[in-house]
């Protein structure tokens, strides 16, 4: 049986993308899972669809429009949830659906755009360009720097938000900062695995780590390990002629397999 290695340029670029994505997803994912923000992450991921539509329509880079729209949505969700009598997940459900519907309405008007947007819907790590890699490296470095700076405070916030606020360790500003980091990272993750699966790449490795770890010190390292193993194995498997599946879904399936193994091991 033939095994396709890393002697192809596109695979080498894809591997580099996965190696940059893994720490990004792992370190964003840990506070997302600890603070129970998986649904917000999903909403921001889906907003990318509208971001792409707006970008294509007004002729700017869809990555930029995605980041701007995701940031806007995150801020609006936080502001509305504070003032509304509805629970945060209901507010997220309403606002995210509205934004996605807006994006779909825009795309349905322009048939040419719909084909272009399809690329972002499913994503493809095999088609990343050197510019994508540069952006990914810059955003990963920025995100990891910000998260490292506030890591303990986000952990304190997850443990007990009131306690963190009373002791002056963390508060609303930290949630907002995490929202900004989430929006930035999601815009790039979407480029590689698509709108539909971006959340999975953020949440599953971090959830695997949380399942296995009983120490805060270990959780991000285990999440990184899970993201790297899933990313590299999923990429290589998807590139094999006998398997020939899309890379994004294969990576997510490998991540889910690791999560399943972790759950069984924990028992």
């Amino acid at each position, binding site marked *: 049986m033939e095994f396709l290695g890393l002697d192809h340029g596109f695979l080498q670029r894809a591997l580099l993308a996965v190696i940059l994505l893994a720490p990004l997803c792992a370190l964003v994912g840990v506070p997302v899972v600890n603070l129970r923000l998986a649904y917000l992450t999903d909403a921001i991921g889906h907003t990318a669809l509208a971001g792409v539509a707006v970008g294509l329509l007004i002729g700017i880079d869809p990555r930029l429009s995605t980041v701007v729209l995701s940031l806007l949505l995150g801020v609006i969700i936080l502001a509305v949830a504070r003032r509304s009598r509805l629970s945060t997940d209901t507010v997220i459900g309403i606002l995210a659906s509205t934004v996605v519907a807006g994006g779909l309405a825009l795309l349905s008007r322009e048939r040419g755009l719909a084909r272009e947007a399809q690329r972002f819907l499913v994503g493809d790590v095999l088609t990343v360009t050197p510019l994508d890699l540069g952006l990914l490296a810059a955003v990963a470095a920025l995100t990891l720097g910000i998260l490292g700076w506030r890591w*303990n405070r986000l952990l304190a916030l997850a443990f007990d938000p009131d306690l963190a606020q009373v002791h002056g360790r963390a508060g609303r500003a930290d949630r907002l900062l995490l929202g900004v980091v989430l929006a930035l990272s999601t815009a790039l993750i979407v480029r590689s695995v698509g709108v539909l699966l971006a959340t999975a790449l953020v949440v599953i490795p971090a959830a695997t780590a949380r399942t296995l770890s009983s120490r805060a010190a270990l959780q991000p390292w285990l999440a990184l390990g899970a993201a790297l193993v899933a990313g590299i194995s999923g990429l290589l498997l998807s590139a094999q002629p006998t398997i020939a599946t899309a890379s994004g879904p294969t990576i997510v399936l490998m991540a889910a397999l690791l999560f399943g193994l972790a759950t069984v091991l924990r028992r």
Partner: protein
Amino acid sequence: MAAPLPFLEAPWARPPTVDLHEVGAMRGEVTVLHDVTARIPHGACTAIIGPNGAGKTTLLRCLLGLLPHTGTITRRFERLGYVPQRLTLDRSLPLTAEEALTIAVSDRPVFFGLSKAARERARALLAEVCADHLAQRPLGGLSGGELQRVMLAQALGREPDLLVLDEPGTGLDTHGHRLCCDITADARKRRGITQVMVSHDLDIVAAHADHVILLDRTVLRQGPPSTVLVSEVLDRAFGRHGAHA
């Protein structure tokens, strides 16, 4: 003759650590507190008691700055240590006792490991609450009493002037509750801390409090336990089974 130590002075000899003046709070359209005027004497242990729905925790949250309120709260302290009800903590979070104590004060990311100084500090604080053996244990595996002591160590680690405890006895047996109160009383005396606790256990309040605020949406009575914990007052506030309201 040497001046008496601050904790040996009468609690009423210095200005109160907290002054509440005509404090009110709403939950939606419902008035939870109205016209609450009370004081938390300096260096003393103040207990806030009252029947269910009296607004005890609401008053505590106003004092902590977690809830908006009307009226004025004058705070004469610099550092605050807070022990929340254990029910609000996320105990499924992967976090050991020494990590919990370290993230409360340090910004060095915990994933780089704890420094030797952080470990020593955590162990010293845990020793103060008779829990140094719990340093490496995940919080999720601790009993209610053990977790309470770790949370107390975290609050004491802030070197507070005011220590606030919300229902410290919830879910603890009498022995666990008494141990927690003894440790708190000991720390209060050694460090000269002012303490406020919301409690539903009147036996514990009688044994440990210097000042009691009886609340039922407003202050029904306040003063030393001997003037508040009397049957005619408690019967009126709690009904006839007031001893364990």
